[in-house]
């Protein structure tokens, strides 16, 4: 186990004018760790995810990332080109809506291959073979490689988005409600897939979800947000089995049993 955190978040706040997005969030994410951020809509979890993944600039606070060269870099001080390169190679971002993370009018194979080309792969045969391998890993039939994601079901699109993100062997993946718009049976398949890949690849991940069952299944650690603040955090099992804060108790007691 690596002895240093992958991501160090120190006192991050984001204001939209006078409105609070998220406030005074601090934590560390370690290699191989999966962190779930839960809370109802408007609690600030997506704002926080955006601040961490440089999609938004925090109003204050520092987010540092442990680069492959062993140095910590302040993400806000990184140049635009460097940040884009990081996002295309060492990071992944899985959107709730696959259309936001895929190019809908190019083939499935090209969607996966594009990220490989971003890291300098130029050999068409290799790119296609790797893309085919990744489609198989996310359980998409290989003969769909030349189809456009427009022709895919929602679950397939989401699996394709995951393949596109993981093909460059990122170390950190951000996921925003990855199972949000899917049927439960499709959800289960996707969750199992994500769970297996995270384990096999030793990924670190930050997953925003309002679904506590998703958090239980995928995450090691959990942060509960309300009104922009992290009100409770800890081991996922602990937060769900022994919630301490009134709001967390309300969330946990509202889960429907089947």
């Amino acid at each position, binding site marked *: 186990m690596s002895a240093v955190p992958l991501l160090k978040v120190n006192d991050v706040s984001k204001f939209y004018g006078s409105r609070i997005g998220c406030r005074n969030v601090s934590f560390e994410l*370690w290699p191989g760790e999966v962190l779930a951020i839960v809370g109802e809509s408007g609690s600030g979890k997506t704002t926080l995810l955006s601040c961490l993944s440089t999609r938004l600039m925090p109003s204050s606070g520092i987010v540092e990332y442990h680069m492959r060269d062993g140095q910590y870099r302040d993400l806000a001080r990184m140049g635009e080109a460097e940040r884009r390169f990081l996002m295309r190679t060492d990071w992944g971002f899985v959107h709730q809506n696959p259309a936001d993370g895929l190019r809908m009018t190019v083939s499935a194979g090209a969607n996966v291959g594009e990220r490989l080309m971003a890291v300098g792969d130029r050999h068409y045969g290799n790119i296609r073979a790797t893309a085919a391998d990744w489609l198989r890993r996310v359980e998409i039939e290989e003969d769909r490689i030349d189809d456009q994601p427009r022709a895919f079901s929602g679950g397939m699109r989401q699996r394709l988005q995951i393949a596109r993100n993981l093909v460059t062997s990122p170390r950190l993946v951000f996921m925003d409600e990855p199972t949000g718009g899917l049927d439960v049976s499709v959800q*289960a398949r996707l969750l*199992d897939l994500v769970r297996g890949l995270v384990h096999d690849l030793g990924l670190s991940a930050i997953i925003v979800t309002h679904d506590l069952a998703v958090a239980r*299944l995928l995450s*090691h650690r959990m942060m509960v947000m309300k009104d922009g603040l992290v009100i409770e955090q800890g081991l996922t*099992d*602990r937060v769900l089995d022994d919630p*301490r804060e009134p709001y967390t*108790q309300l969330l946990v007691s509202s889960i429907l049993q089947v």
Partner: protein
Amino acid sequence: MATPLVVSEVAKSFTMHLRDGIQLPVVNGVSFSVRQGECVVLGGPSGVGKSSILKMLYGNYAVDAGQILIEHQGHLVDLATAAPRAVLEVRRDTLGYVSQFLRVVPRVSALDVVAEPLLARGVDQAVARERASALLAKLNLPHELWQLPPATFSGGEQQRVNIARGFITDHAILLLDEPTASLDAKNRRVVVEMIAAKKAEGVAVLGIFHDEEVRDAVADRILDVSAFSPRKAAA
């Protein structure tokens, strides 16, 4: 003899914020230890806090006060205050737990559910599956179930998967929450043998067994949890 688990002055209560902040005291002043190769059984009537103690020791319940000292890779970790990743590391390498009910993951086969704790420790998949197969065979789980996800299994079948998963590693401490509750006599005897084997290997076992026959067969001593019950202290 070494003592890998020491519990000292542990207290626990629940605050029910949705019920006007009612305080439910669970246990107070819990102090005991388990030595290598010893099986300590938590005794006392239901509702006295036996399962809660196991859940605190495994990190599923937070602790209000006190220490839970676990010998982990040559040093002591206080699970009452340890960071989440330290708790996970202790679970992976030192502390095993068989819960009352199996938490089923969709689409994962019984064999892989059992093999998973070994895979998490970096054991080769073929080796892990072989060890898992041996355990499932020993626990008489029908062969045709091994490749199926346990969601549709009977209570006793799920429990045997759960037991195999808890016993597959060589963890130095094993927590058992009524592992034999839904088993028939034949499989109860298998579990008794497996616990005896763990003890012989020097594993410290802490368990809850309502079945007297099993309890008598495995327990070196019985710890009456009513002694830690705040309700008793008040009476």
